Each structure stands twice: as structure tokens, then as C-alpha cells.
């Protein structure tokens, strides 16, 4: 393993070196002023100088927006700046939750929001299930004594690096009316299917495509977990001639469980925020059959004729609460992983 470990390090260092070259010149100019500053404020306080740029960015683009988001969600009107927006209390939330029946989006005042909630819930359920099953299966196969493991691992992993737009357009080309898949279907005597025009098929394909694009990432996490299981456990099981399915249920799965939880929670967090691939592949359609919550937020704030920042902010806060709960679950899970 040792040579394989050092080689990628060197390649990476070369890549970083290319970026570092212009930086070196720039930084040489900072040397003098920084030395003067240190003489002025002392060695200890330099810590604040180092932390300052990052904190400024975090404050300006994360913490401040977080506060403004809440302000937006309790104010109305069409203005972008909080000073132009009258306070309306919980009205935006009232609009969002104004529903005849929560099970029927069309009975809601903001029917697109509830379509988004219901689509996202269904999508996440299917996607996480498929993701966990296929990445587990793939990780197990990759962990077997097979030839060319590195090659096969790369095969499953490479779509992770593709941009969502590329992924969506690649599949759109295959799934279109005269695409490769329909050619295959007609060649065996079937009828052409309009995959992205039929609501159920569209849902199926966005789940399929997002599993295709991201399963490599989760497979890696599970593979790392599988490789951490001590080999002597398997050897002992083999000595006792334990059947394979039993080895899987009694050894593999329990020891892999912490990694499984990480995968499930991470996939949930990503699934709830799904937007990019779906937006390019189906545009939320047909109709609103694949419209997701984030798509609703984007549409309400930026794409609609009348931009409604307040409503979008309120929907963001609702989404934020869901994500916060999921993140707490992740923290609890990783703490259990640390203990195990």
C-alpha cells in the first residue's frame, strides 16, 4: 500500500503547486506590512489577524443572511431591502400553511409549495432507499477478492465529479423521444415511451439519474467501512463453515452499521435539497410532477414575474428547520460512530 499512498500525494502537490506559484509573489509583498503589524499589536494578537478574513466572509455571507432570512420571512411587500418592507408578522407562514387538507396540494393557497413538499418527500424516500441498497451492494462487490478493483471503483465513482447540468443533459439525450433507450425498446418490438412527459416515469428517472450520479460517493464511505472490519472475524466464520448470508447478517451488517447511518443521513440531507439535476432534466415537469422545494424557493424569489422574497424566505426557514433536525440526527449518529 505504501507506494500507492505516496503517489497520489505527489500528484496533488503538483496541482497545488501550480496554484501556489502566483500566490508566492503576492504574499512576498504582504511580508513587510504583516511584520510591522506584529510589532504594533504583539505576537499573541496576530491570531485575530489570521482569523479575521474568514470570519468576515462567514459573517457577511452566512450569519448576516441567516438573520435577514428571518426578517424577510416576517415582512411583506416587493422591496428587497428590509427598510422597504413592512412588518407582517407570521402572515407569510400563514400563506404557506393555508391548506384545506395537507394531503392534497391543490387545496392549498401555495399549492406549488405543497407539491414541492410532497414531491421532495417521495423523491427522498425512493432515492435514499435505492441509494443505500445500490451503494451497499456495490461496496460489497468491490470488497470481494476481485481483479482490477481500482478500475471498477473508478467506474462507479466518476459520475460524482460530473456537474449536475452535464449529468442531466446526458440523460435527457438518452431519454428523449428518439433517444437511445426508445431505440432499444422499439428494436425489441415495444412502443416508444415519452419518459419525461409521463409523471410517473419522470419521477422514476430523476430518482434513477440522481442515484447514478451520486452512488459512487456513498459507495466509497461504505467501502471504507467494510475494509475496516477485521479479517480474522471472517476467517473465524469460515473455519466454522458459517453460511455466507449468515456472515453478512451477523458480522458485516452490524459492524458496518455506523457507516450505514452516516450514508442514510447524508443522503437524506442531500435529497431534501435536490434541485440542480431535476431542474435541468425535467424543469419540475411534466406540470408540477417533479417540482422540488428548492425549485419552489428559487421560482418564488427569482424566476416568477412577481418576485416574492418574503414567501421564499419563509419557505427557506421551513426547509432550514428540517435540515437542522437532520443534521442533529447526523451528529448523534457520528457520535455513536465515535463511541463504537
Amino acid at each position, binding site marked *: 500500500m505504501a507506494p500507492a499512498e505516496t503517489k497520489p500525494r505527489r500528484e496533488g502537490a503538483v496541482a497545488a503547486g501550480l496554484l501556489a506559484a502566483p500566490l508566492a509573489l503576492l504574499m512576498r509583498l504582504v511580508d513587510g506590512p504583516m511584520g510591522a503589524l506584529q510589532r504594533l499589536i504583539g505576537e499573541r494578537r496576530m*491570531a485575530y489577524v489570521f482569523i479575521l478574513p474568514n470570519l468576515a466572509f462567514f459573517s457577511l*455571507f452566512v450569519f448576516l443572511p441567516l438573520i*435577514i432570512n428571518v426578517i424577510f420571512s416576517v415582512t411583506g411587500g416587493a422591496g428587497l431591502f428590509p427598510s422597504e418592507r413592512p412588518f407582517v408578522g407570521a402572515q407569510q407562514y400563514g400563506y404557506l400553511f393555508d391548506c384545506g387538507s395537507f394531503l392534497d396540494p391543490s387545496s392549498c393557497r401555495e399549492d406549488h409549495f405543497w407539491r414541492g413538499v410532497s414531491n421532495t418527500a417521495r423523491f427522498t424516500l425512493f432515492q435514499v432507499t435505492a441509494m443505500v441498497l445500490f451503494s451497499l451492494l456495490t461496496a460489497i462487490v468491490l470488497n470481494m477478492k476481485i481483479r482490477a478493483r481500482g478500475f471498477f471503483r*473508478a467506474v462507479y465513482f466518476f459520475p460524482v465529479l460530473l456537474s449536475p447540468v*452535464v449529468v442531466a443533459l446526458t440523460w435527457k439525450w438518452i431519454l428523449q423521444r428518439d433517444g437511445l433507450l426508445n431505440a432499444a425498446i422499439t428494436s425489441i418490438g415495444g412502443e416508444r415511451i415519452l419518459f419525461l412527459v409521463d409523471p410517473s416515469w419522470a419521477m422514476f428517472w430523476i430518482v434513477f439519474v440522481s442515484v447514478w450520479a451520486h452512488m459512487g460517493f456513498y459507495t466509497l*464511505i461504505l467501502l471504507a467501512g467494510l475494509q475496516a472490519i477485521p479479517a480474522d472475524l471472517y476467517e473465524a466464520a469460515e473455519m466454522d463453515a458459517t453460511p455466507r448470508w449468515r456472515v453478512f447478517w451477523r458480522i458485516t451488517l452490524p459492524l458496518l452499521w455506523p457507516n450505514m447511518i452516516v450514508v442514510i443521513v447524508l443522503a437524506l440531507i442531500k435529497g431534501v435539497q435536490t434541485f440542480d439535476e431535476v431542474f435541468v432534466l425535467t424543469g419540475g415537469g411534466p406540470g408540477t410532477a417533479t417540482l422540488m422545494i428548492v425549485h419552489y424557493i428559487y421560482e418564488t424569489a427569482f424566476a416568477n414575474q412577481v418576485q416574492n422574497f418574503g414567501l421564499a424566505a419563509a419557505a427557506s426557514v421551513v426547509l432550514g428547520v428540517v435540515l437542522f433536525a437532520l443534521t442533529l440526527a447526523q451528529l448523534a449518529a457520528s457520535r455513536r460512530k465515535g463511541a463504537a
Partner: protein
Amino acid sequence: MSLVTKLATARRKPGRWHWTDIAAYAYLALGVVLMFGPVLWLGMSSFKTQAGLLEFPPSLLPMSQKEVAVPGQSQKLPLFEVEMPDGSKRVLAQVRRIGIQAQMVDPEKSGETIRVPIDKRTPVREFKLATENYTEPLERFAFTRFLWNSVFVTLVATIITLIINSMAAYALSIYEFRGKTAVMLMVIGTLMIPITIILVPVYLVVTKLGLVNSLWAVILPGAATPTGVFLLRQYMLTLPRDLIEAARMDKASEWQIYWRIVMPLAMPALAVLAIFSIMWRWNEFLWPLAVLTKTESYTLQIGLNAFQGELQTQWHYLLAMTVVTLLPVALVFVFLQRFITTGIANTGMK
């Protein structure tokens, strides 16, 4: 072929084949087709002519009708294989089509015109790469502009990310200072806040800074990444303290210690962050989509998405541009694959 034979004969223990071995290789073979196939198909399709793309069922390779220059004709003529009334076959060039009849000439002796019913001719096809799919968008659309915008955003954002994140990581790993715990908690806090839930207010901040439709609006908000700070800090904690103390003895300033000693030593971790940052920035979609509304400021991803709306019927350009967008990532993957996968396995981030 040697790989295939090796694969076919690989087994757990000599002489013992278990059905799970066969199932495993079957699954892997299916995986190769399913994972590589779509991208390969995209690549092959991107070299087809517009007419070639409209064919159904589609041909596997980019084929197009052969054309020849015939003396006496101003344009090149398409070639057909024609079944003559006497049953023989000849290769003729078509001058024009009139109803169900076609006027053909023999490319060798262009004197006589032959009239042929159109159902007696089949096009002569040859393997030809339609490279104009790649060259024409460069001239006709703002494609070069998008490409440049993406390169600019990716490089500048990665440099800023590396500098400010490593500075913060340095402060958090080397110093003890008042408020350190608070800062660490803030960094952890930002981990949980994706752009999806602060889209509107970040837009407000960017507007207030006068950056809407500028590439800086894409670069700045994501420059400070909590994952980057964590990754670098964990690495810097492992560096020997003695080295830093020795440098202080030699009257090196804190900045010099950071830049001349800690940064070179942290190169492996910086490289991981650099690669991740390049990936994030090149592929970023939702935020640029919200903040860039003028065509000249589009990045590749946004431009590509806009094209797919406008160019519904012009798949030949769209496919070629998709391939160009995919290419840098493919190159990075080929050269740094091992590095990226170990990076993900070690940090659990993407």
C-alpha cells in the same frame, strides 16, 4: 484482451468457483455499461451531424452520407448506391430530386443523366466526425465567454479559498486565544447552513455590495468553507510544534512562519482542498443561476442550461458544448482519481 481473460479466470481459491463470484463479475460488467455507456454515447453523438442526430433508430457511430465533387456541378453531390433496372448495382451522385424520381450522374463520366425511382437508391455512408459542432458554437454563441467566466471563477475562488481558509486554520491550530471556542463553534455552525436556505438574503447582501451580474458575486459568498478550515486545521495540528518555536527563536514573524513554514508543510491538505474547490466551483449551479442574469456573465453551467431551453432542436451544438464542459473534470479525474477517492474516504466530504 488480457484484462478480459484475467477477469474471466479470476477466482477466490484455485479450483473453487462460488456462484457469488460469477454474480459479482456480472454486476460489475453491468456497472461498466450503465456508468460509462451514457457518457460514451454523449461523446459519440456529439460528433454526429444535425441530420445524423435526427435518425431513428440512431446509428452507433457518427456516420454521414458521402459526397463527391462532380465536374460541371457547383456543389458537392450526395452519393447513392442504385439498383438498376437490369438488377446490377451502381454508385451514382444525385443532382436533384423531382417527386419520386431522382436525377443522377455517374461521378466518373458526368456526361449522361440517369433517372432513377427514389426507392431504388440507398445512401452511401461513411464514418465522419462532425467537428463543426465544436467549432461553430465558438463563433456563433458567447460560448468562449462562458468558458472564460468559468475558468476565472474557478481559479480565483480557489485561490481565495486556499488563502483565507489556511489563515483561519493556522490561527485555530497554533494559537491559544480568547474566543477560540466561540470561533470554532461558529465554524461548526456554518457547516449546517447550505446556500439553499439562505438564497434570498445572500442575494440581498450581494446586491448591497453592488455585485449582481458580476463574477465576484459567484466567487465571494462561497470562499470561506467550513470544511476547508476543518480539513486544514486537522492537518496543521499534526505538524511539529518545535519547528514553529525554533522559527520564533530565529525572529521570524508570525506571517513568515505561516507562509514559509506551515503552508509548505500543509501542502498535501492544501492540495485536497484545492481539488475539491475546483470541482465545487466548476460545477456550481443554483447560486450562479440566481445571481447571474446577463448572458455575458454566465458561467458554462448556466450558459449550457440556457442553451438547452433555446436550442431545443439544435442538439448537435448542445451535445458538443456538454462534452467541452465535461472535459476538464474528466482530465482531473484521470490524473487525480486515486487522490480524490482517498481524500473523500478520509474526510467524508464531497
